[in-house]
């Protein structure tokens, strides 16, 4: 079964013809060329594929592409404002919250979701929220610091929502 899906990705209209079994992450990576969203497992555990769908953080390996018909999707490629990093991205860089970079897009997308719902999360709240995101490089120490700093920056003068959302 082939079906055409039309949706908005990072503020721009997009469409692709996919199979019924095509996952949202495959639509993004293989049909739209947005390879910033990664696949790190096949059991929806690792969180490398987290994107926002209609403002909610979603593991894009758990959603069929056809379920995203008409949806507003934000991926890591849409977070920065042009060449200017979003405060959360900047905080990740400033706190060395990434090493190999593979889990990073999912981490950033999860962090933005957390801060949207909890603008001033404690260390414990951050660690518990990250239950759904695996990182093998950082030991999470600096990711926690990065998210705390990013949340603080977002409470300040910086824009509260990603540029394309």
């Amino acid at each position, binding site marked *: 079964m082939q079906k055409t899906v039309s949706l908005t990705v990072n503020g721009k209209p997009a469409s692709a013809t996919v199979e019924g079994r095509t996952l949202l992450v495959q639509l993004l990576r293989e049909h739209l060329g947005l*390879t910033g969203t990664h696949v790190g*497992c096949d*059991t929806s*555990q690792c969180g490398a594929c987290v994107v926002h769908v209609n403002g909610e953080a979603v593991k894009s390996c758990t959603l069929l592409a056809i379920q995203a018909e008409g949806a507003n999707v934000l991926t*890591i490629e849409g977070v920065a404002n042009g060449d200017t990093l979003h405060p959360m991205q900047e905080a990740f860089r400033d706190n*060395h919250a990434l090493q*190999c970079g593979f889990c990073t897009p999912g981490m950033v997308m999860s962090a933005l979701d957390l801060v949207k719902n909890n603008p001033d999360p404690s260390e414990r709240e951050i660690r518990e929220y990250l239950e759904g995101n695996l990182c093998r*490089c950082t*030991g999470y120490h600096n990711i926690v610091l990065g998210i705390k700093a990013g949340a603080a920056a977002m409470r300040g003068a910086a824009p509260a929502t990603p540029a394309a959302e």
Partner: protein
Amino acid sequence: MPAIGTPVRRREDYRFLTGQGTYTDDINRPGQLHAYMLRSPHANARLGAIDTSAAKSAPGVVAIFTGADIAADGIGGLPCGWLIHSKDGAPMKEPPHPVLAVERVRHVGDPVAVVIAESLAEARDAAEQIVVDYAVEPAVVDVADAVKPGAPQVWGDQAPGNVCYDWALGDLAAVDAAMARAARVVKLDLVNNRLVANAMEPRAAIGEFDRATGEYTLFTTSQNPHVIRLLMGAFVLHIPEAKLRVVAPDVGGGFGSKIFHYAEEAIVTWAAPRVRRPVKWTAERSESFMSDAQGRDHVTHVELGLDANAKFLALKVSTLANLGGYLSTFSTAVPTYLYATLCAGTYTTPAIYVETKAVFTNTVPVDAYRGAGRPEATYVVERIVDLAADELGMDPGELRRRNFIPADAFPYQTPVALQYDSGDYQTTLQMAQDAAGYSHFEARRAEASRRGKLRGIGIATYIEACGMAPSAVAGALGARAGLYESAAVRVHPTGSVTVLTGSHSHGQGHETTFSQLVADGLGIPIESVEIVHGDTNKMPFGMGTYGSRSLAVGGTAIVKAMDKVVAKGKKIAAHLLEASEADIEFKDGNFSVAGTDRSKSFGEVALTAYVPHNFPHEELEPGLDETAFYDPKNFTFPSGAYVAEVEIDPDTGQLTVINFTASDDFGRIINPMIVSGQVHGGLAQGIGQAVLEGCVYDKATGQLLTGSYNDYAMPRADDLPNFALSTHVTLCTHNPLGVKGCGEAGAIGAPAAIANAIVDALKGLGVRHVEMPATPEKLWRLIHQHQPRAAAE
């Protein structure tokens, strides 16, 4: 301000934070096909007919190849890179390692066929229609079971008794004599649990063949693309280096598991010209669990002899090491030269004997994983030392101090081959104990006890041999490769610099750390430096990144190449300044005549080298582009001390790591931010080994029971504490930077520190050892099996 020693923000982060990294699976080649590997569901089976007829006519299928097709083409097996000789002088048993199984499968996940189709979905669908005739036979997965009489034989007559080699290092007679006169001999049996590396990026490979040039290209998730080119080109596919390009682009973590040459790399490269299109393969995580080389898996008996003053007299270690079903690339070196040589630890133990029997089983091959042999050695040494302290009723810190190699005893020759160049174990232990509040611990234990909780504190010290390795030494010990590194420093006409390094970054931040070296070394802004790695067509050669070697070996190669650039620059500057070369000084990016204000900038000299109108042509060639190869004189020896504090709920067995304090000596530190990150990550993997992670096979069937993230417990953010880090510097004495390496330390020292803390928490119950991973179930059972010591007395 000098760049070295400052926490320069990483230059690679922008692309990773914006989704613009280029990992292998992000690459799509025009016209590419997709490969799916059909893998054995059985641990040990004779391979009968493979019927691909229905699958070949499935939609989208272009080709299906089996082991017979590959064998018919004269393709070699995957080579093993290190030859070990047994005690009796016999070479190790080295059975073949075909890229696709022939005659027999030897572990769950052993590849039996590859399906190549227009889409991955079609390849996977077609694979389900392949009918493989398996005659299933009993399997053996446990290393201790495999050496018992009557055990299933993984390689039959090719490795009788499943033994690959039976090897030893050290002076057995001296050890036995020392044990005979020891006031006390402490004994322990322990297991080092099997782990799965689990880099977050699954392995992937794209093979491509250009019929016009006859050149093959392999994009692969590798830590060492030149090594893959050498192994695959020379031993497997018989392609000359000049016709084979291997590219390892952004790689999403490795931890050792991406050092090795894997079957899929050879298969996609071999298949590309046969299907006349590029062929792409990407592992699913389930495939990673059953095809990436795994780590550790030792069963060990250890004895430590002490004199009446609690000085160590002798250490005797006997280890069974699981190699899995095939020999992975560097598997044979890990439980020998990377393990036994580290059994002196940080101590003056005068007599040491280590024997290792390496054993085949029906499991995924075992090879280097973060630390590779050194965590296993540290675990053995630091557990037996802690047990000795417990038996003697001594403080474990005090027992360690009494036996440390003193800071003024370097260089120090151990009885197990290594010569440590520098270290200061007293200081790092004191720093870690002070930072951890070690001397006040009993108050915290009492407070926890009032809450009904069991609290414990544990120390581990470690030494590691990094910066592999002097090639001559490695060669004498059986290595089939050299272990130097290369770098080219290419100065461009306007003074910007491209550095081509044979090291490979898969998270370590080389683009930043190496830039700091070059910015300071040539006195130019860091923005003028570009670090290039990971492409055999770009850099001269490379041995890649593993064993915490990139800065100590690769960084030194860059320094050596910069030295050549500066030396040539001085000659050019002397000509321009009409001075003697001996009078030219190079400092802060300027070539000046000593004692004068006459100088030429680095940029002016570079321009002169490429626009040589006024140039010493009789003496020099134009251009400013220098290459250096650096072969280290010795290993480097990072060391340190860790203190872990844990709390256990006796009702549930739930363990919390309350604090983890690390004090490390990595020699000179170039970027402290990056170094801290490396330690954090190593600690997380070490704590993971101690309390969460364990790769488990079913003993009856050989099935992999921990085949996904549902079953294999990866450390998550809420499993780990914040880490308290500090560093103390003793310089490496034999490389110009004085650097030692930091990538593996955490994974080496943390398991023993945590295990010692757990035993300390439970010692009131009479517990003397806990096997890793110390899961809540294991702890709960231990607690409930042991009568409280106080109650029993």
